[in-house]
């Protein structure tokens, strides 16, 4: 039996970074909003940082990869044919439960890569269209940082002072100074002081595995509670398996399963999809119908194509013994954008950011490359508490061959096909990463590292999921318009990283959230027809 529910104005599918932001904004704008999330509310007291066996949890039940974690609301991702493994979290808060809250913004040039560099495509929107939504998002999530960064347009004062750099952050910052290279304290969605009812971070370290303190801005403790105060309903354990459309191609509502497998029909005036760059194309391709035979909103054939991740590499320096480097947020220290903007003399187009990282707990240090056997303890003692890394986050350009399709065989427990990911690193990315690793080595040696290890390509780094339902003005070359509205259905919107035209060389989430807020702002102003 199918349970039918009362009509709402908007269904938002997914409660991660994007879905939660859109839910809040629309609820605040007076719309009747229902957020459907396939996962549960996660009790923060169960987050690994509260547990003595947190390192075991981080490699098992809290693993970044859904296929290893195998949580009840995870779906299998077939990434066998991908040079990068796909990482995500599926619960209220989405991947912000796992994220590290490092929140640089895109540069103005990132929206104009075709015009400036002759590659990929320009975005239909500019940095300046997003600026006020970046600010609004910082207000809700709470940003620790400091304005005045010469590598970026000036921005409004941050809500809180930067997260402490630590002696290790200062050591690397001074090295950048000596090299004459840019660096700046990271903007972080981590409280450096109490903010909006959440406490300050106490520097426990591995914030990629939840945050029992709630000092890290996860959307289940930021946007969602505030959205509910504005009247939004959030329904957990609701796995959407179809977005239904009428004969006119417009969306009519969604079908979902509850935790017990009960089937539900939820009618709505409009639907917003925020299931991330893998979950969204999976959903759209699966929702093929008579009016959308190749997949919902897929008349361009581009749903699932142009998948981008950001290419990752890096170097790790071993420093002489001193203050331990495992104290403080793992990767919210400093960043450098010395090599961000295109300079073709480097041998590649576009660029990358350095993001500094800290040491880890004992087991993670050992697993991270300490050899077994007679050299074990010497190597361990040399590394533990003495390492810092520089990660290279490079821009990978969109390629239609890098894509998400539906797996013909593997299905989740509801019978929904698993996403299948095909992704190959291109030559430009390889040259960019090689350059980045070389420069990272230079910086770490300058900072006093006695030995440096290089990682030419980080395979387990598919945490940024972008490009699979890109925006654009031309319906033949894009899936949604500049406001995230589907070209093929005017009451369907997409707000996650799928809509990115290019990926820039920075972590994407503030841009994802700014886009979600801008879409919701457009709906509030221009789409009153969708309000009951």
């Amino acid at each position, binding site marked *: 039996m199918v349970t039918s529910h009362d009509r709402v104005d908007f269904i938002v599918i997914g409660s991660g970074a994007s879905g939660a932001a859109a839910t809040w904004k629309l609820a605040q704008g007076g719309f009747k909003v229902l957020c459907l999330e396939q996962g549960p509310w996660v009790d923060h007291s169960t987050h690994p940082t509260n547990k003595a066996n947190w390192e075991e949890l981080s490699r098992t039940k809290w693993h970044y990869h859904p296929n290893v974690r195998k949580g009840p609301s995870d779906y299998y991702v077939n990434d066998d044919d991908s040079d990068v493994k796909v990482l995500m979290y599926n619960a209220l808060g989405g991947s912000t439960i796992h994220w590290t809250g490092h929140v640089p913004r895109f*540069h103005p040039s990132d929206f104009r890569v075709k*015009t*400036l560099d002759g590659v990929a495509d320009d975005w239909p929107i500019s940095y300046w269209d997003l600026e006020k939504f970046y600010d609004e998002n910082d207000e809700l999530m709470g940003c620790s940082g400091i304005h005045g960064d010469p*590598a970026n347009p000036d921005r409004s004062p941050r809500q809180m002072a930067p*997260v402490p750099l630590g002696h290790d952050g200062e050591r690397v*910052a001074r090295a950048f100074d000596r090299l004459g290279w840019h660096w700046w304290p990271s903007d972080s969605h981590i409280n450096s002081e109490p903010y909006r009812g959440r406490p300050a971070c106490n520097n426990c370290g591995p914030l990629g595995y939840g945050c*029992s303190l709630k000092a890290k801005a996860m959307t289940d403790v930021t946007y969602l509670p505030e959205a509910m105060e504005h009247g939004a309903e959030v329904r957990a354990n609701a796995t959407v398996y179809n977005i239904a459309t009428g004969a006119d191609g417009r969306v009519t509502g969604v079908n979902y399963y509850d935790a017990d497998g009960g089937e539900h029909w939820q009618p709505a005036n409009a639907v917003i999809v925020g299931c991330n760059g893998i979950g969204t194309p999976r959903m759209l391709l699966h929702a093929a119908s008579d009016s959308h035979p190749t997949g919902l909103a897929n008349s361009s054939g581009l749903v699932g194509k142009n998948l981008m991740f950001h290419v990752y590499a890096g170097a790790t320096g071993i420093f002489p013994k001193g203050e331990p480097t495992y104290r403080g947020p793992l990767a919210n220290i400093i960043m450098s954008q010395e090599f961000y903007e295109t300079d073709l003399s480097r041998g590649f187009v576009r660029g990358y950011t350095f993001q500094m990282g800290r040491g880890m707990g004992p087991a993670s240090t050992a697993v991270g490359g300490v050899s077994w056997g*007679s050299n*074990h303890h010497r190597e*361990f003692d040399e590394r533990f508490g003495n390492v810092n890394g520089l990660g290279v986050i490079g821009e990978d350009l969109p390629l239609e061959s890098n894509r998400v399709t539906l797996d013909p065989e593997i299905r989740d427990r509801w019978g929904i096909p698993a996403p299948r990911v095909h992704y190959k690193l291109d030559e430009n990315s390889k040259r960019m990463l090689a350059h980045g690793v070389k420069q990272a080595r230079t910086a770490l040696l300058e900072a006093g590292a006695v030995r440096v290890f290089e990682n030419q390509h980080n395979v387990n780094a598919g945490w940024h999921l972008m490009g699979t339902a890109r925006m654009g003005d031309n319906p033949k070359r894009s899936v949604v318009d500049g406001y995230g509205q589907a070209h093929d259905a005017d009451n369907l919107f997409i707000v996650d990283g799928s809509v990115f035209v290019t990926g820039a060389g920075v972590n994407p989430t503030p841009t994802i959230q700014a886009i979600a807020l801008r879409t919701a702002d457009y709906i509030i102003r221009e789409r009153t027809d969708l309000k009951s």
Partner: protein
Amino acid sequence: MPTAEGQLTNSDRRNMKVVMDRLVPPVDDLPGAGSMGLLDEVERMAEEHDRYRVSLVRFLDALSMDMSVEAEGGFLALEGEQQDEALKEIESSIAKEFANVLEVVYLAYYSRPEVHRRIGWRSGPLQPLGFTLPPFDESILDTVRKREPFWRQAPD
């Protein structure tokens, strides 16, 4: 060789204890990981997590089927360095499974309070204590602040 259900036999346990001592040998006043009695912990994790269970079974299969090891009368009969050689061979033939076994042994070893004491790590959950760091000091920006804005202008 483990049973079809993945249960370790007594002989597997004897082998595994010695393997663990070779992987993480004694140091200072601490015995190796096997002699420390961590096999139960390794088995617990293998029981709870498929990835470890499957790898441990394959690893022990490989150990018991290694012809050179058999020729010498089994893994336990080998000298320490020969044991290392046998392990290296298994590592190169089933790299992924070996890495998982090593991971689970490291997880067990580095969760022990006596090991934490040796390496100077505070045992227990990270919260609620966290760590104290001095607050951000703006003077660190003096040099970089002198730089003119250098972001690239783009047409609107």
